[in-house]
């Protein structure tokens, strides 16, 4: 290699190394789709505060779990339930006893039509609609909660043929937001993040569905990564809590 070239390479190399503080690590996080918007803001705050970097993947809780089971390189898992984080601990995929509830999800019924309904409950009981969207109950906890709501109102059988299932709560939101579904069960956080929503909204009382306790867990792959530990700590901080509650979640 000629001297000029090698000088150039070592300068570039030096510059790259110096630009990252020595403490900076990167953490790969799997995040349940309902938490998409919040996690983007949290990640930004976290990166500013600690100098670490984050890489976030989104999907339904069930889908992310099956990816983790098959060796996906995630280091943290922010699920939309407690079932799968606990299962991950039992299966040896996560650090035992590391899971905790970072947010309590709220389910809403939403339509982009301002005139769609006054009372969401009556609307569901009458069932005067073509398509009602929910997340796939097999893989998405918010979809399961939606099924419980319809069961409790006593209109599940009536609405069965009208249900369209999104791959995750994000796709469900997209079905409703484009007007293709008359209404749908989505996360309150999505509505909060959707600027200028003017449609009909029913914040479903907690009594209609089991609490959506969303747990985070340290996966085995992240156990030795300081950035992973730091992110979990950050998730429990006041700063994080205020962002999480701002989006309509409860915290413990």
């Amino acid at each position, binding site marked *: 290699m000629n001297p000029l070239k090698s000088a150039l390479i070592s300068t570039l190399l030096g510059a790259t190394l110096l630009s990252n503080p020595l403490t900076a690590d990167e953490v790969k996080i799997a995040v349940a789709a309902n938490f998409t918007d919040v996690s983007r803001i949290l990640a930004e705050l976290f990166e500013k505060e600690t100098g670490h970097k984050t890489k976030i993947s989104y999907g339904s809780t069930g889908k992310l779990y099956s990816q983790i089971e098959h060796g996906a390189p995630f280091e943290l898992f922010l699920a939309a339930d407690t079932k799968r984080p606990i299962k991950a601990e039992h299966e040896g995929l996560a650090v035992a006893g590391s899971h905790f509830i970072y947010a309590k999800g709220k389910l809403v019924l939403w339509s982009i039509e301002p005139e769609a309904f006054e009372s969401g409950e009556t609307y569901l009981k009458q069932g005067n609609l073509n398509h009602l969207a929910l997340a796939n109950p097999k893989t998405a906890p918010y979809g399961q909660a939606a099924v419980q709501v319809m069961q409790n109102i006593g209109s599940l059988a009536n609405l069965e043929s009208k249900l369209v*299932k999104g*791959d995750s709560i994000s796709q469900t939101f997209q079905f409703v937001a484009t007007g293709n579904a008359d209404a749908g069960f989505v996360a309150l956080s999505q509505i909060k993040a959707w600027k200028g929503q003017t449609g009909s909204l029913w914040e479903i009382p907690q009594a209609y569905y089991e609490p959506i306790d969303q747990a985070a867990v340290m996966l085995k792959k992240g156990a030795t990564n300081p950035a992973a530990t730091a992110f979990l700590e950050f998730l429990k901080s006041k700063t994080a809590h205020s962002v999480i509650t701002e989006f309509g979640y409860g915290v413990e």
Partner: protein
Amino acid sequence: MDFDWQPVWLTLKLAGTTTVLLLIIGTPIAWWLARTQAWYKQALAAVVALPLVLPPTVLGFYLLIMLAPGGPVGQLTQALGIGTLPFTFEGLVFASVLYSLPCVVQPLQNAFEALGPRPMEVASTLRASPWDRFITVVIPLARPGFLTAAVLCFAHTIGEFGVVLMIGGNIPGETKVLSVAIYDHVESLEYDQAHLLAAGMLAFSFLVLMTLYLANGRYTRSHQP
């Protein structure tokens, strides 16, 4: 384990309907593309080929917007009294026709171009009308092209996934086709059912393509001088 046949029938119905519709729609387009000297011929050929190169999510996204109640196609379908297309079998047919269009047009166009103008000219000296010429001369001569088009379209539609996922809504008996059913089983960790459907699909696809190659091979051999 009871086996759910519904996605299988639904998929065959979708692929069959799409193939029949596309042979009807694709033949005149391919004929025109093969014969025309128009300056915009290549532009139109490029439009027809677009679904081959675009990610299905692009098609799915635009369909979702266009077919929505407020979208241009959605308003048309509502005005015609057929409601909106997403989450319906008809919607999937519409999407599949767009998605598989190049699979029909391109083999047919190649077959028509390979014929050249000569057989048609000869037929017309024998006073065959244009329609007669097409039915009795072009179709028999372009038979391998039609066969390739039909089989490719059928197989391509069966393999459709991204578009269906985006506008289907996973409704059993209506939009839950094989590829979506397999995906659903895998995501729910129901590997037994997933294996069964996936292996069946693999065997079926192989048989279809094998039959096509055998049939075309035999035809080409028997028509060699």
